[in-house]
Structure formats: C-alpha cells, structure tokens
C-alpha cells in the first residue's frame, strides 16, 4: 500500500493496530473507533501520536469531543461507491474545525481524488498495485469547480464557480 499526499508518494509514519493487538507504547498508531471508546482512559497517558479509524457508518459527531487527542482521522471506504466518507470529512473540517490529517483508506478510485481533497482529505492510502501516475494526473485533473468546498476559504464568493490553483 502506498500513501499519497498532494498527488505524490509520501512516507507513512502511521501503523494501523488491529482491535485485538496490543497498543505499542511508542510510534504513531491508528485505532478503531470502538477500541478507542473502550480504552480511552487507559490511553490517556500514552505519549505518542494517536489516530482513529472511522467506518463508513461512523459519523464525525461520534468523535467530536475527542478530536483534540487525534493527530489523524482515517475514514474507511468499504466500496468506492459508498460516499458517506465524503460527508464525514467535510463535517470534521467545517463543523468541528479539525485541522489534523484526514486519510482515506479502503477502496477509492483516482477519479475520486479531487473530490476527496475538496471534502477535506489530505492523504489517501492507495490500494496495492494502483498506477500512481493515474493518481498524480487525477490530482490536477480539474482546474474549475462550481461550488464551495473545503480549502477554498480564501476565495471571494462572487460567483458560483471558482477556480482553484492549477497546482492543487
């Protein structure tokens, strides 16, 4: 699995910890939501970065109170057709003011890359065997967008459509 940020391969410092595996004392780890809820108090003293993994049915509101603890929120896409994660990310950014990393994991297509970014995702765990060149091209596919979204706060709201920078 490769990690993409800003359309380019990036180093992944995070480790997904399975629900039944012990949580290492050091290193950046991502835990499932249910485990986090259960072990929240025990993890209070852990002095290393924590991330949480939301299933497609888990809503942003379910982690709202704890967002200060997470340097990363991973949002799962069981199928690329399941678009709930887009709303989850946008809610995290726009309603909960979350500024940490939001990562798309699971089955996503390069054709969704810009949509993911415009909903607030900043990294994508690309499925194994994916052609990274297609992802890189998709990153700058569109230079025109027709609606407000995450990341274009600086743009004046003078027309419905606005242009985002070619570099993305």
């Amino acid at each position, binding site marked *: 699995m490769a990690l993409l940020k800003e359309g380019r391969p990036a180093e992944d410092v995070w480790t997904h910890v399975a629900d039944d595996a012990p949580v290492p004392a050091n290193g950046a780890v991502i835990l499932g939501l249910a485990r986090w809820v259960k072990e929240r108090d025990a993890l209070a003293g852990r002095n290393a970065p924590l991330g949480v993994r939301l299933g497609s049915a888990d*809503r942003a509101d379910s982690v709202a109170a704890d967002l200060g603890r997470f340097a990363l929120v991973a949002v799962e896409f069981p199928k*690329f*057709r*399941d*678009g*709930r994660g*887009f*709303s989850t990310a*946008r*809610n995290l950014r*726009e*309603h909960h003011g979350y500024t940490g990393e939001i990562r798309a994991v699971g089955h996503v*297509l390069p*054709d*969704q890359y*810009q*949509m*993911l970014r*415009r*909903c607030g995702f900043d990294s994508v765990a690309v499925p194994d065997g994916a*052609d990274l060149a*297609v992802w890189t*091209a*998709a990153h700058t*596919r*569109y*230079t*025109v*967008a*027709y*609606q*407000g*979204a995450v990341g274009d*706060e600086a743009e004046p*709201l*003078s*027309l*419905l*459509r606005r*242009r985002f920078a070619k570099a993305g």
Partner: protein
Amino acid sequence: MTYLAPKRHAGVYRYDDYDRQFLNERVAEYRGQVARRLNGDLTEDEFKPLRLMNGLYLQLHAYMLRIAIPYGALATHQLRGLARIGRRWDKGYGHFTTRQNLQFNWIRLEDTPEIMAELAAIDMHAIQTSGNCIRNVTTDQFAGAAPDEVVDPRVYAEILRQWSTIHPEFTYLPRKFKIAITGSANDRAAIRVHDVGLLAKRNAEGEIGFAVYAGGGLGRTPYLGAKISDWVGEQDLIAYLEAILRVYNQFGRRDNMYKARIKILVHQGGKQTFIDNVEAEFARIRGPKYRLDPAIVETIERNFAPPPFEELLAHSATFDRARREDAAFAVWARNNVRDHRAPGYASVTISLKPIGGVTGDITSDQMDLVADLADRHSFGEVRVTHEQNLVLAHVRQDDLYDLWKALDAAGLGTPNAGLITDLITCPGLDYCSLANARSIPIGQEIQKRFADQQRQQEIGDLKIKMSGCINACGHHHLGAIGILGVDKKGEEFYQITLGGNAELDGAIGDIVGAALPPDEAVDAVESIVDLYLERRQPGERFLDTLARIGMGPFKEKLYGAA
C-alpha cells in the same frame, strides 16, 4: 471546430471560458477512463458508475447515451449539433425523455469520447444523466412565457445545475437524486414526484423564496413529496439543499437498492426526524460561505432576460382568419397553442406523438427543421418537455399559420397536445434491459384506437402514462390512466391504474384489478374511456368524474360485478 454561440436572445445559459475549460477537462478525464477500461486497469464494476455519470448505459442491444439538456432548454445550434451526432454515430434519430434529456440508443463505446468532444464544442455534455448522483434539474417548459409565472425557475435551475456539477460530497449517493423546480402555483414540472421539489414564490415584500418538498418518487414504492419547509429564502437555497443532501448521504439506506431513495428515508424513517436532521445540518452550514449571493443570481438571470418582444395587439387578425379558413390548422391551434404573457405572442407545443409513432422520437432532419423554425419564429430557442414534446415558447401569433404549415409538412404537426393520444411511454422491452414488457407497441395501439380527432377532442384532457417495468420511467403512477407492464411467467401482462395526477394536489393512481394480456389491456382502456364519456357531467374532466363516482363502476365494467 469553430465555436458557435447561442442566438443573442435565446433563453439559455451562456458558457464562458471557465465552463468550457471544465468541459474539456471532463472530456479528457472520460477519454482516460475509457482507455483504462479497455486496457483492463478498471474493472467493469469500477467503470460502470464512471460511465453512468457520463450518461452511458448498457442496454439490450447496444450502449445508450443520455445527453443532458439542462432544464430542457436548447439553443438552435445545439439542436443542430444533436442532429449531426444522430446522423454520424446513431441511426439518424434520437429520443427525448421524461427528464427533458435526449437519448441515442445505438452507440458504440469506442465512439463515446469523440461524441463527448463533439458535445463539448456546442457547450453540451452527458454529465450526471445517470448514476447515483444529482441528475439533470427539470422545470416548466413554459418558463418565461406563461402568464401565471411568479418567478422564472430557469435561473435557479441553472444555479442548481452548476452547484450539483461534480459536487465533491454528493456524487456517490445511496441512489439517484432528482430535483425539479417550478415558478408557478400551477405546477407543470411535477415537483412532488421528485426527490426534492422546489416551488419558487414571492412573499409580501416581493422577496423570492422556496417551498421545499422532499421524498417524492415513483418506482416500486411511489410517494408524493412531503412539504418540509414552506419558506427557504433565496440566499439560503444552496445551504438548505446541502443540508438535505448531507442527511440523505449519511442516513439513506445503502444495503438495498430498492430502499435507497430519499423517499424511504423521509416516509419510512419518520418525516419529523428527517426535518429535524435537515434543520440541524442547515443551522450548521448556513453562513457566509454557502450563502447564495444576490450578485450570482443577477449574473445568471441575465441569460434568461425576456427577449425583445414586439409591441403587438393582444389578438392577431391574421391568426383568427387562418383558423376560420383552415379547419386542420384550427384544430392544431386549439390543442397545441397556448397563451403567452406578451400580447400578440403564443407558446407552441410540437407534438412528438404522431399516431402510431414512437413517443419522443425525432429524426435528425426533423431536428434541423425545428432549429430553423425556432431561429425564424422563437428567438433561436427550443425547449424539451417532460411529456416528451418540444416547445417553441415565444411565437408571434401572426406567424403561427406559417409555422404550422412547415411543421405539418415534416410530420410534426400532430394536433394532440394534452389529448389522450399525447401519451407517455418508456422505451420498454424494445430497448431496455430492465423492462418486463413492451411499451411502445401498446402505446401505438392505444393511439390508433383513439386516432379520430373528433373523438379525442370530445374526451379532452386525459393523460395516459405507461411504463414497461416497476421502475416507472413512463410515470404510470401519475397517469389519469396508468399502464404498467409486468411479467407473468414469461408472458407480458399489463396492470391498469386510475386517478394519478402530477400536480401539486396530485395523487398516485390506484390499481383497478388483475393485470391483463396486451390486447385486453387496450380494450380495457377503451372501456374505461367509454364509461367516463357515458357518466360524466358537463365540464367534468376524467379525473373529476372518477373522483365523483369512484373506482367501483370502472372495476365492474372491466371485471364484472364483484
């Protein structure tokens, strides 16, 4: 290819450099997707939603391409472009749909990137005409012309078209999502059978706002939309719709495609819960970022400014004389011409329902002719109606006779707008891989039965709508007489419903009785009509008589005493 602009006064949205750049980027993306499919990078499972969002379906015999005609408005150079595509890549004809779009039924996958490029050159596309996303927004075909219009709905339909175009959050919804908007209390856009229906209106201060209906839809569980807000101010329109879509995206069912439409969430999940969720989301979204700026509305509005109407007398002596002297013209004028807000003008319906023809079909040559006539008589603009006809919205009454002669000579003068032979059918089993039964031949049979003009005229306003399967593309639930094709052990049968009506105070039709084989179904329709004629009181439409005497007499007539 040289770029052709719409005629100066055509009521269509004018693309600018951004719009064109976007479309070119879309064509490039699609070209890449087709290439990735052909080289195996994309599985068919992955490619399918991508092609659907570009209007490409796999049908029974070939690919079908559904081209978006935003709110049914076409500039004449676009209609000519569609004619060209029909000649080059299809069989020289196209099919207008109940969603105000155009379908080509005989398309090859390899040709589609080229077709998309050809469409982009005339500011057209097939984006979001299919797939689980926000579809083409539909509206009143008489917008900007109807005397009863309060707000021009095209302005907001265009705003919603732009807003919904590859929306980053709402392109992978549980299921398709259709929005219709009307700007007149006499709803001609059937807003209550859409996922969201908007009624644009003005308050006492003259400000524009919208009554919002949600959860309408046909298919196997038909519902009329429920009013979820009586007033959403213009500036809140986008924020409120984002709230509805977000609630639907998060809570709509994804485990069963037959229960995935928003109607199930609204009507089976609890209307008040739905409203509470929408209001809570709306309260969070509302704010400067998602406010619809009046300056945007004004910019869009300029595209739909009234054309420069001449100052004419309210009634044209030329028109009156032609009607007196030519009986055939008088019949057409009676049915296919309607009042216009500007004195001396009229709106014309071009029927695409010739007796024994295929509803909504039009040849490339006919498209060219309609484009020429629209240039001459209607400011270079043509509209597609959700009843699968065309409209020239702004015709001088003085020109009606000449217009009719030209239409009639090309087989486009069928004088049946709004009459029983102006029926709606889906493509049915002749084309569609979902269908259980054929629609087209049954429709043709019914048309032949009622072809006599005097008989049609006597029957008056009676809408027959027919679908070849429960997906209800022919809106059978909304027919005064509805016909649904069903499959019974491999045989085609037809179930008849009565009393459907798509207006604001509308209703879903009720089933009369057991489904019938094809020939009996046509006989049954005739019996129903005969009973209506026998029992009606002066001035009653079919729906009025049905409301007064109930289903009982119709049941008895078809199936004998209980």
